[in-house]
Every structure is written in C-alpha cells, then in structure tokens.
C-alpha cells in the first residue's frame, strides 16, 4: 500500500549566534546550514497495518509524514501510496487519506464545528446519506454531540482534538496519518482516541501511521515500529520482537518493612523511597524466582510486583544504542 524508497530531503536553515551584533552581521551576510532531514529513507507498509513512527525531536518524522501526504516534495527518492506519487498527484492522492496534525487545527476558528464538517462534505463530494451515517457514528464514538454547535474557538484542547480526528475521518480514508494525535489530551480523552483508532483499524482495515512521543500510544496502537534518528531509518520491526529483545530486562518492585532488601548478583537497585524499592534484574544472570527468594530472605516483604520492559524504557535504550 505504501512503498517508500531512497527518500532524501534537505532543508536550508539560517543560523547565527545570539546578540545584537551578530544579528546585524547576519543581516549582511547570512550563514546557512543544510540540515538533512531525511537520508535514504525506505520502507513498505501493507494495507491494514498500524505503524508507530518514533524518534527523538527533529529526527524527520513529520517530514516523512508530510511527504507521504503530498505536502512536501523530496529532493530525491521514490514513493508510492495507493499507486500514486503523493507530490505529483496530490489532489487525487489526498482524497483517500486522512491527516491529523496534532499541533495545528483544520477547523474554522469562528464558526461552529458542524459548519467545518459540512464544508468537508462538499470538498470530498460525499453523498448526504453516507455523510450523515459517518457523522452520527463519529459523534457517538467520540462524544461530540455537545460540541458540534460550538464555535471552534470556544472548545478546550481535548474537545477540539476529538473534533479534529472526526474531521479527518469524515470521508472514510483508507490511510490515516496521525502526527502526534494525543498531544495535550487528558487521560480519558487519550484512551477514547486510542480506542477509536483501534476500532477504525479493526472494522474498516484502515492503515494507520502514527508519530508520537507518548509510548502508551505506541503500546496501545502500534503493531510495528519504525525508528528514525537523524534522518535515517534505524530499526523496523514488530513491537513484540522488540519486547522480546528487551525481555532480559525485568523490574521487581517491593514494599518492605524494616531494613531494605539486599540485591544479589544480577540485580541492581534503581529506586528506593518510603519503603518501596525497585530492582532491575538481568535474567541472564539470575532467574526471577531466584531473585524473589533472595529478596524475601533478606527483608520483610509486604507486596511485590514483576514487570517486563516498558515501551518507554525500550525507547530510551534504543536511543542510547543508536546514539541519537
């Protein structure tokens, strides 16, 4: 469904040191640095996949998404989405995709949300019956009934975001690009949005590509992960494989009474406060049961839990491993 090969994109960024003198100097002679946002980026995504596109700030995530949406033109490389080259057949291409840019708004600021939706209906040339059906469904699932008649400017961020997502889905796109869709949302809205995206994928086979810094988004949504750093794809694999790779790392958290339990070899104390201690365990050296029996032998344990690697920790490890 999506084929990307050898994508390159360079931006020219002017820069100068701080201060008035330097600002004047830059006025006469400006220095530019080229920033290579993408270097030889290639990947394939099949219909119905949900892919988490992760990487630190400035890694090239949004640039890739914008190229895939036909907004930016790359310097070189090929890309095919649904059989079309996004930047060459922009208008035909965007008919079948939905986009959410978490930090921007596509709704008309001064008018009620429903007016923006009606406009999208005409832009995508939807027939009234199917528009009504989709709208009703989205309204129910995202809890919009109270919001539709409110002007966008009066909505809270979370409310607006739910409307934004609905706006991106009103034409039933085959592919959904989500650029930080849960930015600034509260816990309840985040869960609602994630559930909704999952449902879209399950029921309509919508392909979802998601960039985010929220690892819970990744854990909830992405079956597959693409890691990008400094413009290069560093890793492409399933979340499960990745987890297996880090499965050697477990964390035991204990609540204890009296003196703190003493770790044995292969265990390391990570945190200790107010009678609660966490140990990381390298299962190559010591098994979970050995570790537990060791701890319980050295202190009075009130409660104990074992956790595998969290996406958050894995990403930190990955960033370290690839030095990005």
């Amino acid at each position, binding site marked *: 469904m999506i084929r990307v090969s050898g994508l390159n994109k360079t931006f020219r960024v002017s820069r100068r040191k701080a201060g008035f003198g330097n600002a004047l100097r830059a006025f006469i002679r400006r220095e530019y640095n080229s920033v290579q946002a993408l270097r030889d980026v290639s990947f394939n995504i099949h219909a119905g996949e949900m892919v988490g596109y992760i990487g630190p700030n400035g890694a090239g995530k949004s640039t890739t998404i914008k190229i895939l*949406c036909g*907004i*930016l*033109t790359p310097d070189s490389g090929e890309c095919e989405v649904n059989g079309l080259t996004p930047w060459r057949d922009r208008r035909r291409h*965007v008919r079948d995709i939905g986009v959410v*840019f978490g930090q921007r708004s596509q709704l*008309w600021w001064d008018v009620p949300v429903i007016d*923006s939706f009606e*406009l999208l209906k005409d832009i995508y040339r939807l027939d009234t019956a199917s528009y009504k059906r989709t709208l009703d469904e989205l309204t129910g699932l995202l809890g919009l009934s109270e919001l539709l008649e409110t002007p966008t400017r009066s909505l809270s961020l979370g409310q607006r975001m739910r409307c934004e997502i609905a706006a991106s889905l009103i034409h039933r796109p085959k592919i959904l690009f989500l650029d930080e869709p849960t930015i600034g949302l509260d816990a309840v809205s985040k869960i609602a949005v994630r559930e909704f995206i999952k449902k879209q994928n399950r029921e309509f086979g919508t392909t979802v590509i998601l960039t985010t810094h929220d690892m819970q988004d990744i854990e909830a949504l992405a079956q597959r992960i693409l890691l990008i750093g400094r413009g290069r794809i560093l890793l492409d694999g399933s979340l499960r494989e990745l987890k297996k790779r880090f499965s050697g790392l477990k964390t035991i958290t204990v609540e204890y009474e009296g003196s703190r339990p003493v770790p044995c070899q292969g265990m390391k104390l990570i945190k200790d406060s107010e009678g609660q201690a966490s140990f990381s365990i390298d299962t190559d050296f010591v098994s979970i049961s050995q570790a537990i029996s060791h701890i319980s032998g050295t202190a009075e344990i009130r409660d104990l839990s074992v956790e595998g690697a969290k996406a958050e920790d894995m990403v930190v490890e990955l960033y370290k491993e690839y030095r990005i």
Partner: protein
Amino acid sequence: MRAYFSLFRIRFISAVQYRTAALAGITTQFAWGFLLIFSYRAFYRSNPGAFSMEFSHLTSYIWLQQAFLNLFAGWIRDNDIMGAITDGRISYELARPISLYGKWFSQIAANRVGRTLLRCAPILIVAFILPEPIGLGLPPGFVHAAGFLASMLLALGVTTAFVLLVYSLTIFTLSSYGLWTVLVMLGDFLSGHIIPLTFFPGAARRIAELLPFAAMQNMPLRIYSGNIAGGDILLCISLQCFWLLALSLLGYLVMKKALTKVIVQGG
C-alpha cells in the same frame, strides 16, 4: 464547484462574526469620507478648472469608495491565508483534494464580500441623504447602473487575483510583510485608491489607466458617476476581463511553482 461555493459560504459566515469591528470600520469610513470631500472642496474652490472630474462625480466616487472599501482596497489583508503561509497551517490546506488556488480565491472574495455587506449599507444610506454636492447622487442612467454592477464584480475578481498573486509570492519569502506592503501600496496608489486616476498628470495617467490596477476600483466608481461614459464603458469592461484572466493565470503559475518549494514552518 460546489466545494468552492461552500468555502465561499463558510468564509463569508466567518467574516460577518465581528460586529464591533464593523461598527468601528463604518465610523472610520465616514470620518475619512468627510475629510476627503472637504479637502477637495477647498481645492476645487481655489481653481475649479484644474480638475478633470466634476465635483459631484468626485463625491460619488469618494462615498462609493468608502462604502465598498473592503471590496477593492488591496490593503485589506486576509489573515487566514497569511497565517497559513507563515505558521505552517498550509499543511492542512494541501491535504485537501481541491485546487489551493481556487480555495484561496473563494476565501479572499468571500471575506471581502462579507465585510462589505456588513459595512456598506449605513454609509450608502447616509451618503444618499446628504445634500448636493457633497452627497452621493444616482447614476446618470440605466446603462451606467448596469455597467457599474458588472464592472464592480469584475473589479472584485481582479483585486482578488492581484492579492492572491502577492500571497503566492510570500510563499517564497516567508516574511509576509515586506513584499506585501510594497506591492499592495503600489497597487492601491495605481488603482485610484489614494486619488482618482484621472487626476494623474498626462502620460502617467494614460499608462496607469492601462495597468491591471486601473481595473480595480478606478473603473466601477467612475462608470457609476458618469465620468466614464459611452463606448468607453465597454472598453473598460473588456480590459477588466483581460486583466482578470491574465492575473489569475499568472497567480496560478506562481503558486504552482511555490508549492514545489513549500516549507512548512514550525515543525
């Protein structure tokens, strides 16, 4: 086509939201209109022969200009579009299956029509009530009234095509003010926004009257009062059609070029 009409509608609705701003605008336009009329009256009294336009034609010109300021003045900025270019909202604009040129054209025209309809009535009514020669008279005949309406519609098109061309150029420069200020001020001067074109001296006047800017407010306002008459009306309207096509085509090509170089500001 339906999509562009819908865009026109939603932009129109947005444009008529702010009533206090409209009230402030109307007040300013009254003050400005009277200021101009009384200054010109002083000039006319000292040497009536020096003017190529009757005083009553001039007052009609000024009142119509004030009433339809938002339709014709280049300096009326569409902040939605400027904002889309400078802060990166253009990403969403490009993610729609319609022509960006057509979309922005509809929006600019709608904004201008919306703002004008909200403001023009009080000015027109008061100007009609005002006594001769400082008030607004009726057009000399049906031909002039019809010519005025047709020419006004075309002038809106030419103005829209011109400002859209300027907006497209700002996609390259990114700072919206520099280029915009220079081109729009130049355009306003050459369109008869500051003084009617007929007051320009000799050759300057003949050149200015052929430029696209003359096809903006200069023509409809002078057709209304009868300052342009007879076969000249048709000539003016043809010239407007020509400039509407030429500027739209140029703007379309410039935008097409700009979009291959688009950079989304702000991540």
